[in-house]
Every structure is written in C-alpha cells, then in structure tokens.
C-alpha cells in the first residue's frame, strides 16, 4: 500500500508543522528511531521517519536521505528556527501527540494493509 502524505495526516491526525509545504508525496515505507547514524544507514528515499529528535540535524538527515516527511511523536515540538530551516529546504514536519509506538503501529497497518 502507498498513501499520500495529506491522507496520512488526516488518518493519523497529524499536525502539519510546515504548512507552506505540499503534502503530495506518496509514502510506502517508514522507519523509526532516534539515532541519526541508524537512520542514515537504513532510510530509503520517500520514507517517513518517526522520531522524538527535533533539532536542526534532523532536517539535515532528512535532506541527505530524501525523506518524504518526519513525524515527531509524543508531542515533541521543534523550535521556530528548526521549522524555518525545514521550510527553507522543503522538509515536511508532522506532529503527533501519540507515542512513537502508536504512530508506528498505525503506520504499519496502513502501509502493510494489515489493519488488525
């Protein structure tokens, strides 16, 4: 299964933290983690990355690996300068109030089409 970012936002009730950016990319895989080297080693272009990291280097990682979006779980809030940096470089940031476990569970159900 793939899902468009805008639909993902609706289904998972995500807050678009970079609203000036389009949500038209199609997503088909995701990854989760807070260790940047681990993400650099495993991310594929177009992935959605679920994390509780929220600093500038997250934007750089997303740029290098060409991620579709970063979902910041557990209501962690990036500062305005991080949001500005993401907007400048076209990196979509989405906020969720749910913990990473729940975000991933729901993502898995959607992307793997196994909504038990």
């Amino acid at each position, binding site marked *: 299964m793939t899902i468009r970012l805008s639909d993902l936002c609706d289904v998972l009730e995500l807050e678009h933290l970079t609203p000036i950016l389009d949500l038209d990319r199609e997503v088909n895989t995701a990854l989760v983690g807070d*260790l*940047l080297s681990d993400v*650099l*080693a495993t991310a594929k272009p177009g992935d959605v990355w679920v994390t509780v*990291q929220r*600093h500038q280097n997250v934007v*750089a990682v997303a*740029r*290098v690996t*060409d991620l579709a979006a970063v979902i910041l779980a557990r209501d962690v809030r990036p500062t305005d300068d991080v949001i500005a940096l993401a907007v400048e470089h076209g990196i979509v940031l989405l906020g969720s109030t749910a913990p990473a476990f729940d975000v991933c569970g729901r993502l898995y159900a959607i992307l793997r089409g196994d909504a038990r």
Partner: protein
Amino acid sequence: MLEITYSVRAGDIEHGGTASAWLKVELRKEGVSEQLARRAGVIAFEGEMNLILYATRGGTLHVAVDDAYIEIELNDDGPGIEDLDLAMTPGYSTAPYWAANLGFGAGMGLINMERNSDRFEISSHLGEGTRIVCWIDRRKDDNST
C-alpha cells in the same frame, strides 16, 4: 569536474550536516545520480559530524568529482584516534552525553562511511590527526546499493 572544500568548525553542532546536504545538491547539479549523491551525502554527514564532535580544532571536508570518481576527504589535526580497529567497531563511541541525547553516538558513523564507499582509507596518529578518504566509483552506478 567539481572541487569544493568546506571547513567544519569544532563544536558547531547547530550546522552539522549543512555542508553535506548542500554537497548533495551540488552533486546532482553536476549530473551525479540521486543514488550516488545520497551515498556521498551520507559519507559527508558522518565525516562532518565526527569533525564537529571529536576534532579539537575542527577540520576540512574536501570533495572532488570527475567522470570516474567522487572523492570525499576529511582531515583534522587532532586529537587522532588511538585504536582504529576499536573506532571502526560498530557500537563503539566516545560521544559525550549531551551529543548522545541528540541522537549521536551510535558508533556507526565510520562504518556507514565505509559501507557507502567503493574504496575507503583511514589513517590516524595520536597528536597528529585523522585523515579519511572515501571513493565512490561512478562507473559502478547500478542502483543496487
């Protein structure tokens, strides 16, 4: 042909990865495939972060591209790495606590650099510094890695 040198400041965590992300854009402009530009970006990011976190006075990231190779070279003048085998061991890290909180210190950076290179060389001497050179072979651009 493209040749760029970035200087990386010690402790400048705020700008960590900026040069690497920019490098990726420049490589794409130079006609390098997305796949290879991304590998170069990952190598540069890991190298850049190590200069920021560990090199006493920062260092340089030097990139040269021709039809055959993308060459990424990192140089610093200290402190140097005492045991290279240990440093290359996945999971080994001396990242300070504050950096670990930011998601650094998985002890995977050097391995990521090696894995994304077709050829990888590292040399280091205590008190002198560390030099890393990574080559990506553009003629092997088969989209498989």
